[in-house]
């Protein structure tokens, strides 16, 4: 018996080893090597274009079927549920027409309608809540997670979807997971090795190479197709790089182009191990839980790092939380107080191939990574903006807003004043005063027409891209409110 089982065992091993070794050879040749070296672009763009054509076809079929049934397709609008017309200012609405600007307005029972409507509009659709859920798509990308029209799918579409499912979970996902695991283990091994070298210059040179390799492998494991713009503005040593935050993958995307020093809390478990490995070979700034509370300590460590011109630039995400990549929310002023050069970077993801936004309240990190790896691809554009410095007479908050506006303009995102922390906390009560002030001006304080006209002119000059939530807060109120918000 034993020789028989031994023979079977032998045969089994030999049979299995051939496909496994073939698998690994293929992997090495076609994926790891190009990944390390920087990738082949023609195949990728072909892949993307084919996918886009398929998506358009799928959406067209759904529309045709919906028409057959005489029903409306659930059209997703990136603008939301309500038509966003030009927001009438409180003055215009309540007074009725611009011509009676001079006469005093008497209180009317109908004045309440304005507030009522604004309130209901924000219940139905507001600028902030929708930033914390995934962006809606115009055409279906064959992923169940972004479909709203289940009952318009016929046999052909289901077949296509099934094929897509098989490709994604059967081929793409295992490939990517293997790549990721190989990449991370290799990275950890090499950084530890490099950490043992005595020669500092050699160590920093090699560690840079190792880090870049690690990041590039992670990028390929997600099939992230990144386009870098304005590379001449790439961050230099001795500064801080700020970017808008959508997902933890942002770090990998930026770091595969040049090395940064990361800032963050020291975690436990696998992430903590990775963090400790990274520190051995290059200067990252990890804080213990207790140190995070101490703002001065944090600021001191950051400024020490920045003052040393040989050290890499620090990468910081001032929003403090993940936003869904349609807007940029309030930047926390901490990193803008240090007084060094800021290198702004705008990152914009293309949601058609896979939504990169991490909704931390809906799913954990591992689930998120798996769903990233089972999307078609992660396509994004990175714009390096010219460096900015704090100007004379500008305080940290104004500087932060200036940088935020530049990033929003470049990436085609909406610039909001709201705090990303609103995901979890409530709005400051002081915002209410703004509207009350305006309404009282309409009713009572009308005598200084001159100053009012000047105020509206100032308002127009300074906030050309106001959105509905902030439109009726005059400039002075806004500065007051923002100041309160930050203390």
């Amino acid at each position: 018996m034993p020789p028989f089982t031994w023979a079977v065992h032998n045969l089994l091993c030999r049979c299995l080893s051939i496909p496994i070794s073939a698998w690994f050879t293929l992997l090495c040749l076609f994926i790891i090597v190009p990944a390390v070296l920087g990738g082949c672009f023609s195949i990728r763009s072909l892949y993307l274009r084919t996918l886009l054509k398929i998506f358009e076809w799928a959406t067209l079929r759904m529309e045709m079927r919906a028409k057959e049934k005489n029903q409306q397709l659930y059209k997703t609008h990136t603008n939301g549920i309500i038509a966003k017309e030009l927001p009438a200012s409180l003055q215009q609405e309540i007074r009725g027409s611009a011509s009676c600007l001079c006469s005093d307005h008497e209180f009317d029972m109908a004045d309440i309608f304005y507030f009522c409507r604004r309130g209901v509009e924000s219940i139905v659709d507001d600028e902030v809540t929708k930033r914390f859920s995934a962006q809606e798509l115009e055409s279906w990308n064959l992923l169940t997670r972004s479909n709203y029209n289940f009952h318009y799918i016929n046999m052909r579409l289901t077949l296509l979807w099934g094929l897509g499912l098989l490709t994604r979970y059967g081929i793409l996902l295992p490939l990517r997971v293997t790549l990721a695991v190989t990449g991370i283990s290799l990275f950890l091994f090499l950084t530890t090795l490099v950490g043992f070298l005595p020669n500092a210059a050699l160590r920093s040179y090699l560690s840079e190479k190792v880090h870049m390799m690690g990041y590039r492998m992670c990028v390929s494991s997600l099939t992230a197709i990144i386009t870098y713009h304005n590379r001449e503005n790439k961050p230099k040593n001795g500064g801080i790089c700020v970017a808008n935050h959508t997902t933890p993958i942002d770090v990998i995307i930026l770091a595969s182009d040049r090395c940064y020093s990361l800032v963050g809390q020291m975690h436990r478990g696998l992430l903590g191990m990775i963090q400790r490995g990274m520190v051995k070979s290059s200067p990252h700034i990890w804080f213990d839980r207790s140190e995070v509370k101490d703002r001065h300590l944090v600021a001191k460590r950051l400024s020490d790092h920045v003052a040393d011109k040989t050290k890499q630039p620090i990468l910081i995400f001032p929003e403090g939380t993940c936003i869904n990549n349609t807007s940029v929310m309030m930047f926390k002023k901490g990193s803008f107080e240090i007084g060094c050069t800021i290198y702004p970077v705008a990152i914009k993801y293309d949601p058609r191939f896979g939504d990169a936004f991490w909704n931390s309240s809906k799913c954990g990190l591992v689930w998120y990574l798996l769903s990233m790896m089972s999307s078609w691809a992660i396509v994004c554009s990175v714009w390096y903006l010219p460096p900015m410095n704090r100007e004379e007479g500008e305080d940290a908050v104004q500087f932060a807003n200036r940088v935020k506006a530049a990033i929003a303009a470049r990436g085609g995102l909406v610039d909001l004043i709201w705090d990303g922390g609103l995901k979890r906390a409530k709005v400051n009560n002081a915002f209410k005063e703004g509207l009350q002030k305006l309404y009282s001006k309409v009713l009572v304080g009308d005598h200084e027409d001159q100053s009012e006209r000047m105020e509206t002119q100032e308002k127009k000059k300074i906030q050309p891209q106001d959105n509905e939530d902030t439109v009726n807060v005059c400039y002075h109120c806004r500065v007051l409110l923002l100041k309160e918000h930050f203390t």
Partner: protein
Amino acid sequence: MGSSSSSRNKIPNAQELMHQTGFSSAHLLRLHDRFESLDRDNRGYLSPDDFEVLGGLAMNPIGGRIIEAFFSSGQDTVDFSSFVRILAHFRPTDRNRNKEGTQQELPSSRTRKLKFAFQLYDLDRDGKISREELLQVLRAMLGLQVTEEQLQSIAERAIQEADLDKDDAISFDEFKKSLEKMDIDTKMSVSFLK
């Protein structure tokens, strides 16, 4: 993988709701999505603090009253059908509704809109806006920006203009009469995208 999206089957009594409110099925789906995104703990109903996190509402001087309008009849939860029924008040008024012969009045009719606004003033729901209730609303809308005397004079003027039977309070009919020339439709309508 992936979260399941809403389909018409998930909305209870969808046909009935569409009939009673006048929303199309696409609108209902969107509102259902909105309901779910406001209901962050996935309980199937909303409570007042789910509304209070909305920036636009917290900033609104009468935000608290609008929230209360959703929680009428003493309950502290609102389910999806009640949510939609209240929001239906803000649909634009359908002018050609009556040709089907349905006797049921839609929430978006002029009278119903006025009734909704009336309830924002009339907190104790006794059918009349007393001087004190008017003052409360004015205080909410103006805050500390005006003096108490100014508030009193504004309230006085408003009551004198609208109060026809001189009982020092404004009933619903008097309210309707004082606004008969006003274009309620645009002021009290939220333009839902098709």
